[in-house]
C-alpha cells in the first residue's frame, strides 16, 4: 500500500501510469474493434497517450524537446486522421462497409 505521501506527491510515475493505461486502451481499440473509424480513434488515443508521456518527461527533464515533439505529433496525428478518414471514405465507396473483417482479400 503506497503511503499517503506517495499518493499525494504527484510525479512522473503517476503520469506514466496514466499514459500507459491510455496507450493500452488505444492498442486494444486497434486490435479489437471492428469498425475502422474506431480503430482510427484508437490510434489517436495511442498518440495522445504518447503525448502525455512526452509532456510528463519534459517536465521531469526540463528540456523543451518534448514539447516540440508533442507539437509535431499533434500535427502529424491530425494529418494522419485526415488521411485515415480519406482512406476510410475511399474504401467505403468501394466496399460499402467499414468493418475491418471485410478487408481480407489479400491473404496467404
Amino acid at each position: 500500500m503506497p503511503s499517503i505521501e506517495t499518493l499525494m506527491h504527484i510525479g512522473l510515475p503517476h503520469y506514466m501510469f496514466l499514459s500507459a493505461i491510455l496507450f493500452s486502451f488505444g492498442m486494444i481499440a486497434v486490435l479489437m474493434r471492428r469498425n475502422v473509424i474506431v480503430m482510427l480513434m484508437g490510434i489517436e488515443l495511442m498518440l495522445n497517450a504518447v503525448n502525455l508521456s512526452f509532456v510528463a518527461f519534459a517536465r521531469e527533464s526540463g528540456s523543451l524537446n518534448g514539447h516540440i515533439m508533442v507539437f509535431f505529433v499533434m500535427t502529424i496525428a491530425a494529418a494522419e486522421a485526415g488521411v485515415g478518414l480519406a482512406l476510410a471514405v475511399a474504401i467505403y465507396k468501394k466496399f460499402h462497409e467499414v468493418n475491418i473483417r471485410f478487408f481480407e482479400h489479400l491473404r496467404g
Partner: protein
Amino acid sequence: MEIQFGLIDFILVSPAVALFLFSCVPLLIKVLRGNREQNQFATLIYGIIGVVTAVGLLVPTMGVERTAFDGALIFDGISSFTSLILLLVTAVGLTFARDSRSTNPNQFTENVFLMMNCTVGMLTMAWANDLIILFVGLELFSLCLYMMIALSLEEKLSKEAAFKYFILGSFASAVMLYGISFIYGTVGSTYLPEFLDASQSLLGTNRLFLIGFILLIFGLCFKVSVFPFHAWAPDVYQGSPTPLTAYMATGVKAVSFAFLLRLVAAQGFTVERFWPFVDTLQWLAALTILIGNVGAFRQKSLKRMLAYSSIAHSGYVMIGVIAAGIGGSSMLGASSVLYYIFAYTLMTAGAFGVLHLLEPQPESDLTYEDLRGLGSERPWLALSMTILLISLAGIPPTLGFFGKFFLFSAAIKQGLVWLAIWGVIGSIISLYYYLRPVLAMYMEEPLFNRGQSELRPLSYFTVTTLAFVILIIGLGSEPFYQLILAALT
C-alpha cells in the same frame, strides 16, 4: 541559447527543397489548366528534372561529414549514400509509374507529386540526427505511400492494401513514438549523438531506456518487415500498384536500414549488458529469413512471391546490421549492409519492373503461368528477368552474390557463423522459387493467349539497364565497395 544557422544549412537540405519545388510544378500547371491533366511525359520530365537537380545539389556536398540546423540533420556517408539510392529509386519509380496500367491517367500528376514528396520524407529520415526529425520524415513518406497506394486504378485490392498498411503503419509509429518518449525521458534529449552516447551507460542500467530503444528499433523493423512485424508486407506489396511496390519495397527499406545502421553502427551493441537483445535480434533475423523464404516457397502470385522474398532479404540485411552493431568500429558490417541495400534496390526494383511491364490490366496479378514462353516471345525481357532472379538468389557472377558474400563475411567476422549458415539455408530454399519463373519462361510450353501489352520503351529500357548493371557491377565491386567504406569512415 542562441542557435545559429546559415546558408550552408540550406544548401545542404536543398535536394529536398528542389524535389519539393519540382514536384509542385506539374501540380500547379494542372491547377492552372483547370484541373486537366497535361501530357504525362512532360510531367515525368519535370519529376526527372527534379530528381536530377536533387542529385546535382547532393553530390557537391558529399565527402565531408556535416551537420545542419544545429545538428538536427546529419550529412555523412550513410545519409549521402542512402540519398543517392533514394533518388535513383525515385527516378525508376516515376518511370515505372508513367508506364503502368494501374496509374490513373487522370491523376498522374498527383502521383508524381506524392512520390517526389515521399522521397522528401525519406531524405529527411536519411538525414535525421534527431528523433523528432526522424519521426517527421517517417510519417511524411508513410502518409504519401498510403495515399499513393489508394490512388491506384485497381479497384479493391489497392484500397484494402492502403488501409491495411495505414492501420498497421500508424499503429507501429505510435508504438515507436512511445519508445521515443521513453528515450527522451531517460536521456533527456532527442538528439541522436547525445542519445547514442547515453546509451553506452543507460543500456546496461536503465530498463526504461532499454524498452524505449527496443520500441524504436521495432518501428524501423516494421518498416523493413522483420519477423514478426512483417505480416503487412506481402498483402501490401501485392495490393499496391506494381511500380509503387518497386518504389516502396526498395526506398523504404533503404532508408530504414540506413537509420538502423546509424543506431547500432556507432557503438550500439558493444555493451555487454545489451547482449540479450542482440541474441533476440539474431533470432528475429533468422526467423525473418525463414519466414520470407518459406512464405515465398509456394506462392502462385509473382508479386506476392517477390514480397516474401523481400522479407527474406530484410533478414539477410539484418544479419549485416547485427554484425555492424557487434563490430563497433569495424566498418565491415556497415559497409556490407549498404552494399546489400544497393544490390537489393537494383534487383527488386528491376524484378517488379519486369512484372509491371507484363501486366496487361491494372487488376492483373501475374502468376508463374503467365510467364510461360516469355523466353521466346520477349527474349530481352526474359533475359533481364532471369538475371534479376539469379541475382536475387545470390548466384554468381551477379551483384546479389557479392552482396551476400559481403554480408556473410561481416557475419563470420563477428562470429555470427550460425546466422551465416542460416542465411545459406534460406538461400537454398529460395533457389526453388527464384528459379521457377525461369523455368516457366524458357522451359515450359508457351502461353498462347497472352494479353498483348504495348511497348513501353522507358520502363523496358530501365529494366534491362538494371539487369545488365547487376550483371556487370558485381564483378567490378571493388571501387564501389571502396566508395562505401570511404563514405563510412
